[in-house]
């Protein structure tokens, strides 16, 4: 599992690559919390290279999304594979977080 981030037009983009499960969740959580310290209020998760997600990993993403909502900011997800989308869908979160097909669409959504 690998996490990278960059800021574009005041939007924080976090890309998660590989497997996000109960084994990798603690390190992912710590890394993401650190990047959120930077007073961000717009967050885009790029999940195009996320190969596997279980509930342990889902909690990490939801935790960050909740934090941004608490700041009255905006959050979106982009690039979900079919499997990752299914996990968000069966958990009921596709109705709560905007999901965009591409990072570009996600950026556009958050910029508006």
């Amino acid at each position, binding site marked *: 599992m690998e996490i990278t981030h960059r800021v574009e037009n005041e939007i924080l983009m976090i890309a998660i690559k590989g497997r996000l499960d109960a084994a990798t969740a603690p390190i992912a959580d710590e890394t993401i919390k650190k990047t959120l310290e930077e007073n961000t209020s717009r967050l885009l998760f790029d999940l195009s290279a996320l190969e596997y997600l279980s509930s342990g990993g889902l909690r990490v993403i939801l935790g960050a999304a*909740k934090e941004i909502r608490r700041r009255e900011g905006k959050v979106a997800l982009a690039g979900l594979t079919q499997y990752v989308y299914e996990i968000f869908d069966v958990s009921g979160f596709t109705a709560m977080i905007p999901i965009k097909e591409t990072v570009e669409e996600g950026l556009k959504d958050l910029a508006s």
Partner: protein
Amino acid sequence: MTCTPFSLNAADMQSHKYSFELKSDLSELETLCQHLNKFGQVTGLSEACITDINICLDELFTNTISYGFEDDLEHIIRFTINLDNKVLTLIIEDEGIPFNPLEKKDPEIPADLIDVRIGGLGIHIVRKLMDDIRYERKHGKNKLTLKKFI
């Protein structure tokens, strides 16, 4: 998501049984994935189906090692997968304390993200992806049997 085997015709639809054991350590989640990829190769089940099986066994395994043992010793969790015609049966057994994950209530999914309580999602996902789940406590063992009709 459907689980149709992509390369099987009626004659190929024989029964397959696959068993393996994992140690009670989260690092074994990768080994679980490797076993299921092997099972996928043998049976010709679609990648989508193997991923569904992987997620369900992952959630239950993670639950077991989080709540099922009272000491820090290494324990063994045994998995058996059976594909018989169109019925997929997954069995997970451990010798931990009596622990029935089905007693956990499904989380209520609220309308807004801010009200989400982050917990209990694993078993909720398993219930959604499988057609039947049963728990038994027999001979000092926890046994979970999951079924999916494919």
